[in-house]
């Protein structure tokens, strides 16, 4: 449940607001202070409550953590859930606000078909039961960026229930295997987003931007089947991939299209669940994992030190890396849910229940939507493992990085190199360079074609793998040269002249009699030293396998 919190202690706040009249909404002032994206409640370090009732039970039992998530995904749609205003990120403030969004008296909600279809698609992809009848409710609370004083949501009867989300946890770097895990999906509900409050602390003002007010959200409620930050992070990442594959949400956390609240408690296995806290404002997957793990540890040490966990809302402080109580004075507010009287029940149909002669524009057919579902990430990964014989872990990495799968597939299309070689180059070298410079795949200086050409040169043994790495480094400099050009300019081709290579080997052996002695004494590593010396002498242009063969021949003669 989105449980927006009222600002605590907002003395001296003044409002400089969008004025709504004459048919359009204009902002009166520009925000000059910090912007906060739905961060409600002043962060403050929690006072540690004094509790001595519980005895420390350090080391007595193991602790288990129970984590449930509520995820809000902004629906990718042209217009809002109940109005015709456009949905667009970073538009000028209050430029996408209809009379309904500004809650002008007398306006009524009209349900957006696209949002319903997105909810059904997402429900089907998460193995949910789709309710053929669902209802809308009003959830009341006063907040400046909620102009109607209530949010329209699905409290009693949501559109989808009882699903599951399968995700994979890496079993460790070495084996490359992934352990499948599953978290149950309690429900998916359609609801309205709120506007944004822009707090100008300097001037004690809060500016309201209603562009986001009324945008359609999918609230995905996960059962508390998770037990640590990594599980939660991986599950959310998988959901993000599914939403993106479906196109139902862009699910970009940085832009607030995916927002996660976590409910966390700890207990001893076999005993009743502990008191839970809710951690809000988790706006990246990394922070999600960190916040959950911090909160679990905090609760355990609190309890082990005889303290008590309060049922409270906490927010994650990114800089300090810890959770802090939002000390919300209205934590127990009653939302006074009521059926939304202006929207009839939402009825969906399937092939069997579709009324004959129904206007396809007027009804939504679940079966029809099921048929149009795209390939889901789990299937894509399975296909990669089957088709290219790659490790499951590698298939996860390919999907997890935005655009990486597409890059890989484009390289595959143009190269003769083995899939394993391509996988290794894309995941190790290419991805390594990206990470080092913190670039997205789309920002890469190396195109799939260039990498394909490079891998072809490697595959045909035109260059050595170390030369290939050198070429890659050149490519990364964005000098507009092809791998072929770089190879010839830098004379990186492997030496094809065996006679010349034999001459190099001979010279090296002559110059390093001690190493030769070592080899002859039976030190198996000594030959590698000779190989290295020969390669150096050839400026890395010789194939080590060929060098080894020549050396062995010369040594044994």
């Amino acid at each position, binding site marked *: 449940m989105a449980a927006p919190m009222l600002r605590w202690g907002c003395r001296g*706040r003044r409002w400089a607001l969008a004025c709504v009249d004459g*048919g359009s909404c204009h902002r009166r002032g520009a925000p000059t202070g910090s912007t906060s994206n739905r961060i409600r409640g002043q962060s403050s370090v929690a006072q540690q409550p004094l509790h001595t009732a519980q005895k420390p039970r350090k080391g007595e039992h193991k602790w288990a953590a129970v984590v449930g998530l509520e995820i809000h995904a902004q629906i990718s749609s042209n217009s809002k859930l109940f109005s015709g205003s456009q949905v667009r990120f970073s538009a000028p403030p209050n430029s996408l606000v209809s009379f309904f969004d500004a809650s002008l008296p007398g306006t009524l909600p009209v349900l957006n078909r696209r949002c319903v279809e997105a909810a059904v698609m997402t429900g089907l992809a998460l193995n949910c039961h789709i309710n053929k009848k669902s209802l809308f409710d009003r959830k*009341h609370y006063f907040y400046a960026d909620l*102009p109607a004083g209530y949010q329209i949501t699905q409290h009693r009867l949501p559109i989808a229930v009882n699903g599951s989300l399968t995700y994979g946890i890496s079993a460790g770097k070495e084996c490359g295997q992934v352990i499948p895990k599953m978290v149950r999906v309690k429900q998916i509900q359609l609801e309205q987003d709120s506007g944004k409050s822009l707090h100008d602390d300097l001037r004690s003002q809060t500016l309201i931007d209603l562009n986001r007010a009324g945008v359609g959200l999918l609230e995905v409620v996960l059962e508390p089947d998770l037990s640590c930050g990594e599980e939660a992070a991986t599950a959310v990442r998988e959901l993000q991939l599914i939403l993106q594959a479906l196109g139902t949400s862009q699910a970009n956390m940085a832009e607030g299209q995916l927002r996660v609240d976590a409910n966390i408690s700890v207990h001893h296995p076999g005993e009743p669940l502990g008191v839970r806290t809710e951690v809000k404002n988790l706006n990246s997957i990394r922070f999600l994992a960190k916040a959950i793990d911090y909160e679990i540890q905090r609760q355990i040490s609190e309890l082990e030190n005889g303290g008590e966990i309060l049922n409270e809302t906490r927010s994650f402080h990114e800089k300090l890396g810890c959770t802090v109580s939002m000390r919300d004075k209205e934590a127990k507010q009653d939302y006074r849910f009521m059926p939304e009287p*202006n929207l009839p029940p939402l009825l969906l149909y399937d092939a069997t229940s579709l009324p004959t002669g129904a206007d396809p524009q007027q009804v939504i057919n679940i079966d029809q939507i099921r048929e149009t579902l795209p390939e889901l990430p789990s299937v894509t990964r399975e296909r990669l493992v089957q088709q290219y014989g790659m490790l499951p872990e590698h298939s996860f990495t390919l999907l997890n990085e935005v655009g990486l799968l597409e890059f890989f597939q484009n390289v595959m299309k143009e190269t003769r190199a083995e899939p394993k070689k391509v996988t290794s180059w894309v995941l190790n070298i290419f991805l390594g360079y990206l990470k080092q410079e913190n670039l997205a795949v789309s920002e890469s200086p190396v195109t799939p074609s260039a990498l394909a050409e490079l891998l072809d040169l490697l595959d045909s043994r035109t260059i050595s793998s170390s030369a290939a790495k050198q070429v890659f480094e050149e490519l990364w400099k964005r000098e507009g040269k092809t791998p072929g050009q770089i190879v010839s300019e830098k004379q990186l081709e492997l030496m094809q002249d065996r006679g010349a290579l034999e001459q190099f080997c001979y010279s090296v052996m002559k110059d390093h009699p001690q190493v030769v002695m070592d080899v002859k004494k039976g030190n198996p590593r000594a030959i590698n030293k000779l190989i290295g010396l020969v390669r150096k002498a050839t400026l890395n242009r010789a194939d080590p396998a060929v060098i080894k063969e020549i050396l062995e021949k010369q040594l044994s003669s």
Partner: protein
Amino acid sequence: MLGLISPGQNGQITPTELCQKCLSLIKKTKFLNAYITVSEEVALKQAEESEKRYKNGQSLGDLDGIPIAVKDNFSTSGIETTCASNMLKGYVPPYNATVVQKLLDQGALLMGKTNLDEFAMGSGSTDGVFGPVKNPWSYSKQYREKRKQNPHSESGDSDWLITGGSSGGSAAAVSAFTCYAALGSDTGGSTRNPAAHCGLVGFKPSYGLVSRHGLIPLVNSMDVPGILTRYVDDAAIVLGVLAGHDPKDSTTVPINKPLVLSSLEDVSKLCIGIPKEYLVPELSSEIQCLWSRAADLFESEGAKVIEVSLPHTSYSIVCYHVLCTSEVASNMARFDGLQYGHRCDIDVSTEAMYAATRREGFNDVVRGRILSGNFFLLKENYENYFVKAQKVRRLIANDFVNAFNSGVDVLLTPTTLSEAVPYLEFIKEDNRTRSAQDDIFTQAVNMAGLPAVNIPIALSNQGLPIGLQFIGRAFCDQQLLTVAKWFEKQVQFPVIQLQELVDNCSAILENEKLASVSLKQ
């Protein structure tokens, strides 16, 4: 416009002349307090355009050039819309309610916005921030003459009568000839009740037949735009323009065929139901007598008249109270002083600003209902109050279904317990008590979403109008109005005589002519 404007009769008049006559009457009857805003310039401009259309032979239809008034809880683009509340004083909507737009599209002239109880919460039109509305019948020849005969009555203006409400301004506006039709809203009887007290046809259409988009809500699940006119035919014409699906209101339904009112010659195939639960001790004997005579009239003309039972009627008031206040609490949440409307000067904190704004913006009646509604919606109370009230509402609606399934075509009931009472009498009770009493015959219809209409039947011994209510099957509005029209023709309700009030207002006020004006081609 049938009844209003019968082409070919004498007294031909241009839209501008008609508009000016009405504007002049609005000025003369200003003391009635029927209008909150008079949109003189808008009306004259519309009249001018209408006149051009008539000259070019391009009249838009029955409503072209006809002065109308709109209750001040319908949004009107560019014209202040206050709901008779401090909260919305100065609020100018940027859009027209669908019903307003439809009337304007037909060439109707918008004379102004009419007075009401604040946010339509009341049954007297006495509880708005602009003061009470006075019933034009207080100044009628019929009422004055009766009062002269009564030695106890005081002379002077202190004993003026209420219009009923909450659409009292609309009722007074039509009753005093300042317009030919007016929009009211009807949530528990707010159109039918003042129609009964002002001797008018007050029609509440089926829920879902007419768009609520732009109507500032009281109870979304019961609100319906209402129509106030002098004659049934006029109400039917207005309904014909308003009815139908509105993409902006998801609770409206499409209609298959245009609404045409035929004259009923024969009532022998009709079955009229008389709900026995509506015979309550508080009902005035005069109204009871007229109700009975009306039933006899149908019977004597060959209709079948039977007693029916609506057993859950007595739970209607308390059930309505829970549902109404709950929706009110919710609907009023948007008035926080931020986006539009009143905002207090307090800026200590946002919460303090909300509290003071709402304290200053709403009257006691509104605040009282918000408080009750929030109580009923609390988590701990929701099941015991709101859910139970919804169940009772279903039972009440089923009562009507059962009655209609037993073969009844139309139900005939009183509209009010008594005729209009003097203001000083009315305010002896508080708004809540009054609303509960006065809505007794009208409210259940809103719970069931049925069409219902008040038809004036006769004048009381005091010379005041008395009306009866016809209730029809859901979406059988046309059948209901057809029966009502037949009844109207039989009873020949007298036209209000206001000569004394607006003595020098020329020929237009001579009632026969007024009732049948025709516009020049």
